[in-house]
């Protein structure tokens, strides 16, 4: 098979490879151009580097990780995000299962969920701080608060949309509600679950950073606020860039998990 690739096929594959290459090349080129122009404009003092900082100084700050305790701040933010993400997702899926199990409960709680969903969770910040104290727990609760309701709604919605005919089929074999849950509803909703993972990792990060803005002695959110207050724009910019990278890595981890999950055919 491999030996008889037609000319047209070769052309086609070449075209695809070329397109892929140019896209990656342009993506990198835009970034490089942006950084170079930024640096030049700052050096020529066309823009005020006190306000905008500049790439070389950001790089310097980044290299002096230890002097700024940057690594510690990164770890704190990562830790809070991961814990918030895990709690928010697990708790959310668990509550969604309970509400699927009892349509009576789900009807009772529906208006509360709807209101809580549209409420901006950041507004709960001060209340959370008073209740659980200013510190890491408050930040984690914030992350959970932001991701929890969405997780419940998304997963419950998926559970309820599970093919009724398939559930009926299981019932004809006298399946129990627990069997319907574990053998049909959950496996049928793996993609819903993965979607909520993707959304939640971003939401948890939002929760953690806004929590760190309000109360914290460490973390990237703290660094950003602190840097802003003392006009250390190098520090602010570096933190923002690291935050971007961190978000990218976490999202990548979820994508990797998705690949592993979808590749494994569960015979459940």
């Amino acid at each position, binding site marked *: 098979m491999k030996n008889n690739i037609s000319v047209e096929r070769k052309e086609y594959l070449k075209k695809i490879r070329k397109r892929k290459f140019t896209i990656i090349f342009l993506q990198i080129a835009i970034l490089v151009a942006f950084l170079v122009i930024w640096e030049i404009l700052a050096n020529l003092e066309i823009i005020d580097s006190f306000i905008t900082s500049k790439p070389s100084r950001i790089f310097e700050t980044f290299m002096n990780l230890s002097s700024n305790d940057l690594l510690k701040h990164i770890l704190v933010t990562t830790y809070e995000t991961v814990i918030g993400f895990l709690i928010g997702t697990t708790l959310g899926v668990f509550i969604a299962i309970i509400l699927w199990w009892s349509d009576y409960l789900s009807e009772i709680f529906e208006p509360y969920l709807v209101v809580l969903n549209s409420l901006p969770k950041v507004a709960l910040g001060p209340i959370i701080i008073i209740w659980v104290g200013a510190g890491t727990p408050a930040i984690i609760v914030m992350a959970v608060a932001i991701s929890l309701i969405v997780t419940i709604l998304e997963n419950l919605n998926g559970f309820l949309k599970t093919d009724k005919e398939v559930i009926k*089929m299981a019932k004809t*074999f*006298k399946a129990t509600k627990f*069997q319907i849950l574990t053998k049909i509803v959950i496996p049928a909703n793996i993609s819903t679950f993965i979607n909520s993972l993707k959304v939640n990792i971003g939401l948890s990060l939002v929760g953690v950073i806004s929590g760190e803005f309000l109360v914290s002695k460490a973390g990237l959110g703290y660094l950003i606020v602190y840097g802003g207050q003392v006009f250390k724009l190098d520090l602010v910019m570096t933190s923002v860039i690291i935050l971007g990278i961190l978000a990218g890595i976490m999202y990548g981890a979820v994508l990797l998990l998705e690949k592993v999950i979808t590749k494994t*055919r569960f015979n*459940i």
Partner: protein
Amino acid sequence: MKQILEVKNISKKYQGKEGEVLAINNVNFNIKEGEFVSIIGPSGCGKSTLLSIIAGLEDKTTGDIYIEGEKINGISEKIGYMLQRDCLLEWRNILNNTIFGLEIKNNIDKASKQYVIDLLKKYDLYDFINKYPSELSGGMRQRVALIRTLATRPKILLLDEAFSALDYQTRIMVTNDIYEILRKEKITTLMVTHDISEAISMSDRVLVLSKRPGTIKNIHEINFDIDNRTPINCRERTEFTNYFNILWKELGVDEK
């Protein structure tokens, strides 16, 4: 031959906000071992409800159902049920789809698994046991669904418009396939369909339900003098058209 299914005085009333609706009124009939019986009736006459009641998926208002002389309540082990769609689980391979019912009933042992494997071999699906439903044709999927139902060794099989989701050509082929399997395995079958020709081509008897509230209007014996009767070769006979005309009139689709 011995009676497998006895349906006595079944009625069903629905309670709604607007009041009560009598959907089925006093239905009685029996099915003998090995028989293939169809129920036809105008749409909305309650034929699918009747089947759901026999399967134990829906409550009845009055009446009793007996299988092999034993009164049943709710979903019975002795009944197999096939729905309109094959309802295969896309995340399970074919083998695990066919043993799904056994698994639910906690009934997987060597003998039952061997029975499933024998059926898969007999009906040309054994080469596909590691494939997934999306890799199979509509007809093959329906055969897998049938084997899933037969795996639990039901005394009677209920087919609820089981072929109506298929396109016309596949449908004719699948009815032929399924009919052959049911005859070979000597499965007693009760089928609900809106398709008169499907009912004639497969059944030994056809029950005609009246429009709502559904009651039995008439029972027709279907006889084709063919040695190797199949749904397809029945369709070529003149009797087929005669039966069709009789049943068509009886359904009273024209009447208002």
